[in-house]
């Protein structure tokens, strides 16, 4: 897509995440947001007066609050400041990062605070998502984000036994990661010997999509502070640079009710474009960690093929060989991913936050046990929309003089 030269570089200098939970009766919406804001400010070592602009996003119908940045000013720190509200669905958190990047790169602001949040216990998540469908047709048919289309596709292609085992292997690895992450909402401590029981007994939601496969419905917020190169170098011991990002939407009439393949090429299209323009030939080799927006274990497995531009059953093998585990060749979601915690408006930003922590090397118990220099983070929303972002430990690539 047509574009110019990046006006200036942008780094992440502060990271805040609340604990993710379905038990946040103790805080209202702005109070929960403030927990993440406070953490991000402390992490960056700055006060709110150093922030020039606040960017806010979530989905209004999950909590039924109209233009909620107005009320949330009680916790965001936006009082007296410039502020924006930018959203795109489940991709919102990724879009907020892109927006903060644009706002700082433009030279308008030196320091931008971006906040993604959702308090899903305050509404009905599946009902809220169903409401995204056309009121005259699909709203009658859709069940939120629940679909077993990925399961159908994998089963058709690889047979039920191999496909189901791959999905459950993915699920157990994610749970093992979640158990390492003190912020995660769901961490069961699943063991490999439970595999067969889980495949047979977890309550089914739709077809072969079972409760155990599906992402959680969480309360939580994430805040990230972005700064211009000059300010970032002064502020942070180790700024994490936002190298590039790409957003790819697709028409709403994407019919999940088809197993004609390929029917969701946005992830692959985004990856192809992003890697090509950054000169990356072998993404599996280039990236050290990938934080993926994986709404279910089935999608997680299926999408590995798209994001890493793989063919055949290479993506299944990555899972079967447990190369996606935290100590594997390509660690996927050392945080536990979206199945472990999913406050939707924050979820995609949490992917970026977690990827940035991995690069800084301070992710805590779920730090990948190798040097992380290049991280990939994805967002998913709408009707198969993609935001894909690259984070690096040093300035590289697009926009370099």
């Amino acid at each position, binding site marked *: 897509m047509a574009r110019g030269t990046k006006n200036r570089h942008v780094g992440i200098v502060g990271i805040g995440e609340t604990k993710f*939970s*379905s*038990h946040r*009766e*103790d805080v209202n919406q702005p109070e929960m947001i403030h927990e993440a804001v406070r953490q991000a400010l402390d992490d960056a070592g700055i006060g709110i007066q150093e922030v020039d602009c606040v960017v806010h996003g979530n989905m209004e119908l999950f909590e*039924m609050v109209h233009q909620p940045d107005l009320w949330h000013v009680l916790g965001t720190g936006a009082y007296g400041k410039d502020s924006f509200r930018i959203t795109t669905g489940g991709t919102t958190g990724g879009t907020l990062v892109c927006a903060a990047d644009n706002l700082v790169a433009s030279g308008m602001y030196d320091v931008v605070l971006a906040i993604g949040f959702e308090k899903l216990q305050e509404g*009905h998540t*599946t*009902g*809220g998502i*169903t*409401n995204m469908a*056309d*009121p*005259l*047709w*699909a*709203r*009658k*048919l*859709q*069940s*939120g984000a*629940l*679909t*077993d*289309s990925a399961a*159908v596709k994998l089963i*058709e*292609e690889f047979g039920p036994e191999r496909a189901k085992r791959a999905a459950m292997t993915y699920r157990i690895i994610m749970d093992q990661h979640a158990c390492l992450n*003190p912020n*995660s*909402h*769901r*961490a*069961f*401590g699943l063991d490999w010997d*439970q595999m067969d*029981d*889980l495949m047979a*007994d*977890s*309550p*089914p*939601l*739709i*077809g072969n999509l079972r*409760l*155990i496969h599906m992402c959680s419905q969480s309360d939580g917020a994430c805040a990230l502070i972005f700064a211009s190169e000059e300010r970032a170098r002064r502020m942070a011991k180790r700024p994490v640079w936002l190298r590039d990002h790409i957003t790819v939407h*697709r*028409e709403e*009439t994407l*019919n*999940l*009710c*088809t*197993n*004609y*393949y390929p*029917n969701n090429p946005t992830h692959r299209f985004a990856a192809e474009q992003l890697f090509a323009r950054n000169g990356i030939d072998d993404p599996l080799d280039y990236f050290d960690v990938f934080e993926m927006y994986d709404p279910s274990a089935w999608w997680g497995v299926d999408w590995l093929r798209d994001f890493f531009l793989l063919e055949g059953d290479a993506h299944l093998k990555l899972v079967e060989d447990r190369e996606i585990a935290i100590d594997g060749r390509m660690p996927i979601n050392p945080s536990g991913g979206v199945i472990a915690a999913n406050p939707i408006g924050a979820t995609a930003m949490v992917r970026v936050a977690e990827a940035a922590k991995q690069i800084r090397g301070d992710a805590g118990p779920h730090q990948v046990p190798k040097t992380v220099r290049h991280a990939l983070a994805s967002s998913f929303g709408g009707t198969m929309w993609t935001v894909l972002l690259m984070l690096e430990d040093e300035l590289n690539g697009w926009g370099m003089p």
Partner: protein
Amino acid sequence: MTTYFGVDVADVIETMPSRFRKEAAAGISGRFGYDLGEAGRWRLAVRDGDAALAPAEDLDDCLAVVATDPQTFVGIQLGKIDATEAMALQKLTVAGDRGAFGSITRLFQKYLPPGEEALPDTELVVLKQTISVGQTFATGPVMGRFLKGLKQKKILAMRCPVCGRLQSPPREICAVCRVRNTEWVEVGPKGEMRMLEYVYYASPDPLTGETRETPYGAIGVLLDGCRDEEVFWHLLNPAQLDRVQMGSVIDGQVRHGSRLRPVWAENRTGSIDDIQYFELDD
């Protein structure tokens, strides 16, 4: 000491008597067992608003016994793990009187790990409401013509003048070619089952606020005259959920699915409800 989620399991157990809410226990008495695997077996005796907890050899004399592993137990106490889900995963079972056990779980204040500021015994206020705003949805000329077609038992699609793709329900433009759709085509009404979403999970319908009946089948039908992904999204006769066969196309290999036909509503008003559902065309 065995810790889970950074919490000592013994601390969770031993603080149970101090977390007991006497005022809520009026009229409840009985013995309840906790079989916590390597964290041991415990008997909770409740009587006249008092509670006593002691280790136990066997729990045969208990009204109900919950069996779980210490990690799940601590996880539930901390809100890390959802109890219903743990039961679904068979990580927690209740033997005996489940109802009685359910009633005693409400007798304890939430466990707080040592060092976390103790909550004063404040109630956390919750406000439940259904918010409903009436809407008038416009069809516009394109969706309007399609919906009017249903009144006459016709399923209409629009064809892209550039790529020839059919869309039903139709769109104003073809998103791929970025041109207005111009040509109307009648498709179906019979077709082939391409995809079934077998829905077990009951969720509210935001158009009515009512909860949907489950199970139901949302289906993709490849109507006669359509190809590839040009499927039509509707519902399946719920009685036939287990009798249909999906079709597929993989690498050009076609496998045919069940033949389906629409069942039209008696009174058709020009809406999605004009088709009740699709059923097997035996």
